[in-house]
């Protein structure tokens, strides 16, 4: 009897120590769920979801504060991916956050730019190059099309341009299935 108790309590203590050690040694840094959600977001950093960037939105989703349908740049693809990850229902995009638009890139009309640096401060990904009283320009490859630079510009010299389809961006479209249904299955009321 005593032996059993001693053995069991020793085992319990041993495993407890082991688990405690593992908890300290193999601690996971950060919240892996937030990381996973953040990976699925388009990283436009546009704030249309009402959070200041993609990561804060990912945190809000992980905490259950935000729904998965608040990201217009991600569109349907992102919603499906998030629904998959979080095991939730697929919901249509919330129109309050905006609508799905074709991909755009910002262009500065360099003739009209006065070099005020306001857009540089607004750009979330540092994709605008310039200095005070010097002409600014957009690094197109790095522009996410978030439109955050439009509002601060005092001379309205920034324009969003839709990215044109080229041989590099062209892709095969999904074939449209056209089933010919049997007449009886089409009009069940008639029969």
């Amino acid at each position, binding site marked *: 009897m005593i032996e059993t108790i001693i053995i069991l309590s020793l085992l319990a203590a041993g495993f407890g120590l082991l688990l405690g050690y593992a908890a300290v040694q193999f601690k996971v840094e950060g919240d892996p769920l937030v990381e996973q959600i953040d990976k699925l977001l388009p*990283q436009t950093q546009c704030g249309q979801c009402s959070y200041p960037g993609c990561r804060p939105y990912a945190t809000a989703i992980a905490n259950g504060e935000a729904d998965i349908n608040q990201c217009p740049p991600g569109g349907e693809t992102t919603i499906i991916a998030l629904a998959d990850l979080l095991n939730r229902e697929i919901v249509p995009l919330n129109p309050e956050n905006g609508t799905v638009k074709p991909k755009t890139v910002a262009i500065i009309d360099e003739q009209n730019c006065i070099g005020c640096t306001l857009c540089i401060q607004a750009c979330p990904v540092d994709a605008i190059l310039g200095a005070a009283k010097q002409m600014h320009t957009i690094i197109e490859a790095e522009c996410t099309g978030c439109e955050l630079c439009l509002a601060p510009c005092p001379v309205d010299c920034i324009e969003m341009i839709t990215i044109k389809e080229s041989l590099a961006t062209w*892709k*095969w479209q999904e*074939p449209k299935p*056209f089933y010919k249904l049997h007449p009886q299955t089409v009009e069940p009321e008639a029969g």
Partner: protein
Amino acid sequence: MIKKLFNFKGGLRLTGHKAASTQHPVMPAKLPSIIILPLNQHIGVPAEPIVSVGQHVLKGQKIAKATDYVSAPIHASTSGYIRHIGPHAIPHPSGLQATCITLEPDGEDQWTDLQNHAHDYTNMDPSALRNLIRDAGIVGLGGAGFPSFIKLNPGPGRTIDTLILNGAECEPYITCDDMLMRERADEIVAGLMILRYALQASHCIIAIEDNKPQAISAVEQAINKLNVPDTQLAIVPTRYPAGGEKQLIYTITGKEVPKNGLPIHVGVVCQNVGTTAAIYRAINHGEPLVSRYMTIAGDIDKPCNLEVLLGTPVTELIEQCQGNIETLDRIIMGGPMMGFALPNLTSPVIKTTNCVTVANKNSDKFQHKKPMMPCIRCGSCADVCPVNLLPQQLYWHASAKELDKTQAFNLFDCIECGCCDYVCPSHIPLVQYYRYAKAEIWQREKETQKSNIARERFEFREKRLAREKAEREARLKKKKEAALKTAESPPQEDSKPTVDPKQAAILAALERTKTKQTTQKVQPKNIDNLTDEQKQMIAEIDARRTQQRQQSTVASKTASPPANTARRETHSE
């Protein structure tokens, strides 16, 4: 001749329709009225124009240079004037335009000086040989258009034991390689020797399908005539897609090219016979790639093979073969299995164009798209797939947009041969689904890469802003502390140099105002010649003021009513 061959799984026995276009010897096509040369006729980076509009160029003159390792230069197909450099329709399924150089022939067809470019390759370093092939603008003429010189570079530490020449032209209607082997077998075999030298391959195999007896005998004669050692002929059974690179390698060597691998990984290099002949012309005669053999077949009166200058508009060739532009329904670039319908009839012939198939309206040869029916899981597609895939599983997952599952079913091993499409009793455009899925996966990959960069830049910016804020705060704090120190210290220590002159000035100003406040009192004005009434009022006001001052110093609620009564008293008076 190789006796032991291996059979690849699946494939189709198709009606060849090859006899019609092999009746006559290959004729040069008429000099076209205009030549359109797209800058991207190959896989890789587009070439860069080195000519200007209005300039006169000679046939074979380089007009656009290669800009990257995977790129190829472009040469003028005939002598003439550069008329335009800009967007023009190109043979591409998208129907998009791309930059082209438009050349107006002057009718002379005058070659540039080729003498200096002809070489004896046996004294050359293989890398110099590759540079010559690159400069001649030679790309794979079988259809893919991969720059040939890259394929001839096995890389350090790799040995090539087998060099295969692909003469297995398996797609229906196409006969240009067949005609080339019949007419220019010597050039092909001579080209083979050049390739073999460049690769240092131990032995060579020329593979020809058994439905081309004339080509087989011509090549056999050429091998005997030129006395080429260690070179064998392999007669492969006619079965589509026997001419696919991986299928052909398996048929001949029994080796399977690994997933995501290249033939070079199993010690094999495979080149098209047309490419080989072009390499011979480039090395021994210095001729760059300016023309090619191609088949014009389908619903036309005179199906034939022509030697066509690159850049010739497709419609001019069809007219030459007495095809009717008015009645045609579509022009298929390539064969009926792997070709695509040309979206724009002004598109030119490019380096990879081996065939133009014309389909008329009301054609009995080419079927129209039949309505697609649901998949009945018959499994015919899996039986014919030459790469051992499960086409219906790929279709299910592609149509459901489950892209990761299509990849698990090895979507990227699909060679888009169209066998599954051909046998499907429900007329499902299977290959279209695979192309769509592949394109979607590539696009998502690109987007992920872009979003990763954006995330990195965003996070870096956040860090930078936080750091700048911390630095600013630290600076402010330091200043404040310094100011406090100087404010406390001046009265005690008179050592002037330690005091900041600015601080001293501020302190002096503060001192002045303080003394002003304490010493100076407001002197009342206009107090001469006052009436008694006025004097009395002033006295009352002064009394009230002192009273209120006293009250405010007490600052209690009970003090307020007397003030009110006092005011009322003054009013009543």
